[in-house]
């Protein structure tokens, strides 16, 4: 029962947090900023509308939003929010889930190519390239976690007696992992400095340009999927910062969501104070993230 409630809270609250990022960015710019619930309003507006489809497109274009949203929801079923055991979990689910996210990406890219637009093709090419690198970075983190607690499932990483967190026996290494994962989060969810969700020039976009031709409820599904994906990565980091305390699910949920807010605030601050990287520097950026977690593995080898 607890699991279902935790899942429900997560599913409903995910669109709230990107609002926090916007608020932070507005604060830095000295503006008032949109209301916190702005993303809910956007979703509601999109759901009310109809759609315009390009004559170039086929059913693959309509599959894109469906698959990417379903993939993101699938991940939520396996995630132990606030250390509460998730609905489902098995040894190896971490690999499965990152591949499920992979199929969401596959169809997003295919849908972008389906529109016959040169800009969307360019976005898809960039997404394919950068995603490959960040996937490698994520798997290095999984390798490290396997070294640390011998498990391969999200539930075993973040709940139970052997949860991985900064307070654990190898906490120092996790500092590296947190920085690395934060960099991967920014890259995978198309945030500054890799991609700018607020940019207006199609040539410089990555994720936004792939979904240019989607409209109405389709666009809402895509947006929802990307909120969930961002929420998943942020929750991953939040769980690393602190494992659940011995205080019952309610206090844990409170702790978890405050840490999560902190992660989103950190994203907002990063977006406000850093500039976009040049496109040819993005691979180096993701490789740095890869190097950090790889480095953490080397340190586990026999040294510490």
């Amino acid at each position, binding site marked *: 029962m607890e699991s279902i409630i935790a899942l429900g809270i997560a599913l409903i609250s995910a669109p709230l947090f990107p609002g926090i990022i916007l608020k932070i960015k507005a604060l830095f710019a000295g503006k008032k900023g949109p209301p916190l619930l702005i993303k809910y309003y956007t979703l509601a507006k999109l*759901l009310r509308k*109809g*759609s*315009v*489809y*390009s*004559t*170039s*497109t*086929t059913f*693959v274009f*309509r599959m894109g*939003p*469906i698959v990417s*949203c*379903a993939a993101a*929801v*699938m991940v939520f079923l396996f995630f132990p929010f606030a250390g509460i055991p998730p609905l*489902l979990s*098995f*040894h*190896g*689910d971490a690999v*499965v889930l990152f*591949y*499920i996210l*992979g*199929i969401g990406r*596959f169809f997003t*890219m*295919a849908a972008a*190519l*389906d529109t*016959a*637009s*040169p*800009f969307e*093709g*360019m976005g*898809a*090419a*960039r997404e*394919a*390239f950068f*995603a*490959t690198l960040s*996937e*490698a970075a*994520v*798997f*290095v983190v999984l*390798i490290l976690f396997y*070294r640390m607690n*011998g498990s*391969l499932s999200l539930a075993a990483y973040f709940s139970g007696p052997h949860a991985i967190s900064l307070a654990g026996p190898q906490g120092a290494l996790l500092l590296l992992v947190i920085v690395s994962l934060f960099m991967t989060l920014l890259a995978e969810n198309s945030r500054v400095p890799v991609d700018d969700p607020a940019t207006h020039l199609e040539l410089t976009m990555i994720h936004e340009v792939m979904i*240019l031709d989607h409209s*109405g*409820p389709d666009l809402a*599904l895509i947006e929802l999927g990307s909120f969930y994906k961002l929420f998943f990565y942020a929750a991953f980091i939040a769980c690393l910062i602190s494992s659940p305390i011995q205080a019952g699910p309610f206090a844990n949920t409170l702790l978890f969501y405050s840490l999560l807010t902190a992660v989103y605030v950190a994203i907002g601050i990063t977006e406000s104070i850093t500039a976009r990287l040049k496109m040819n520097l993005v691979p180096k950026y993701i490789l740095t993230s890869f190097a950090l977690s790889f480095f953490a*593995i080397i340190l586990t080898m026999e040294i510490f």
Partner: protein
Amino acid sequence: MHILLTALSLILIGGILPLLMHRWFRLSKIVHITTVTAGCLTGLYGLYAVWQQQAEALFSCSWLHVFTLAFALDSLSMFFLLPVFLVSPLIALYGYHYLDKPTASWRVAVNNFFFSLLIVSMALVTVAANIMTFALAWELMSLSSYFLVMFDFEKEETQRAGYLYLLFTQTGALCIFAAFAVISSHTGSLSFAHIEQLPHGVKLVAFFLAFVGFGSKAGVFPFHIWLPHAHPAAPSHVSALLSGVMIKMGIYGILRIYILLDDPSPIIPQTVLICGMLSGVLGVIYALGKQDIKRLLAYSSIENIGIILIGAGLGMLGISSGNRIMAAFGFAGCLLHVLNHALFKSLLFMGSGAVLHTTGTRHIDQLGGLMKNMPVTGRTFLAGSVAISGLPPLNGFISEFLIYYAGFQGLGLHGAAFLFSMSTIIALAVIGGLASGCFTKVIGVVFLGEPRSVRAQKAVECGRAMQAAMILLALPCLLIGIWPEPFIRLVFASLHDMSPLATISPEILGTIPQNLAMAARLFLGLLFVTIILRRLLYRAKPISQSSTWGCGFTQPTARMQYTGTSYALSMVNFHRPFVRVRTQYSGITKIFPRWAGYASKVEDIAEIGLHRMLIQPLIWVLDRLRWIQHGHIQLYISYIIVTIAVLLLVV
């Protein structure tokens, strides 16, 4: 075993009959397909009978009163027979509409004959139980596949490709026979028995010789050069058979020689893993860089052979370091990927054949928008692409997951074994990412968007037989993906006769197959729910059609679409030291430029290396020896006499 031999003779008859009745073109093709299918079904029944231990698994007879031909069926050979018997009849069916040239009926009949011969010889390779039988079957397989490649023998491209293939396959065979010679000179017999008692050094020599030989058949990285040339030259259904089934015989050979030698030294798994990772990563990068769809698929075969070798290498590493779970999962993933790759790679080659058949071009940047005119080909190709990218819920993921599992098991080891397990996991992740990039490129550029040429615009759907074959291959891809339990159990059961793993019990599997199945079905369920949700959301909403938004540009043309070349270029450039990218750009000179050209080509470093290291010095040496050739026949006769005299005196 007798059932199996009956099946093989049936298949062979299916090859000979078309030769006799090639004047009745359609009839000969129908006879070929039905007989081959009947033979394969009989073969499958024979496997089932042996599996249930209702039939004996041994057969031997003497040949020429000198050699014994021995055949035996163990679980490994039975598993490798599965793709042979499952995929071959579908490829034959596909060939019905693909080889639709009544004017060339004799040629088609000959092709059908060698097709049957190849199936039979592949089956014989897997069941061969002594060195002589194996060598004979292996040569038969190489030669019959050579004649299949040479279908369009009057084209120069085909001749060159065929020559290259013959060269590689014979050099490979030479290495394999050398390995057998080393073995039999120590055991003193031609049988497979007692090989495991050889001294350690001999075992290593034999293994590496055989690895080079089998690797060149399978398409392992430095020995793969024939593959990307032979596949574009051969007819598509032949490519499907070669790439889907025949190159797996190389993998079978590596596994078989490993089991026979039974040597636990870590150098073997390390070599296999390094070759596997190289093939996997470089194969997919070259695939990304190619614009010829069949060459791209050929490189993707190299990539998948890499994944298969990674599985095998992890299994061997598990054995040499005593980690049985890792060994079992590694080999299981390897075998399952053999089956999976046979399914989806045949499917993809068939799809590319259908495209080639109707548009007449293999260049992907001239295609586009085929999904609308070729719905069946497009949809099955999409399924194959998702499967080959190793994405759930299709079958490619299941085998990759098993290999991942083995890799993660290996993380508990120390020293070099740990480093190897870690790098395989990273390599698999990179391969997975690049493969999905590669196949979104194929799907996106060939089947989606707008047609880039008139030929692509006028494409029509392929014949019924071709469609049926592709659908029948796409369905098992989905089936293995969402119902993997029986297949994983089958694979684990197939490991039973591998002597180092004989004691593996199925308990170590635990609930993994059920969990994988659950995840796949859950994802499909979620997908279904989302589709229904989307339907509901779109109820009574205005939906209109319009052209793609051109970002402010009002007159977009189909040629402005992103091409496959530019899609892949940044990814290819990233791996530059391992890939050579040649670009030609004419530049823009005047204020009103007339014509500008840009061409880029991705070159294979193995090919360049071979050319520089081997061929150029060889040509140099041979040039120095030109003086031997005079043109005087008398002198040549004296050469012969001298040679014979020297041989008689020395040997």
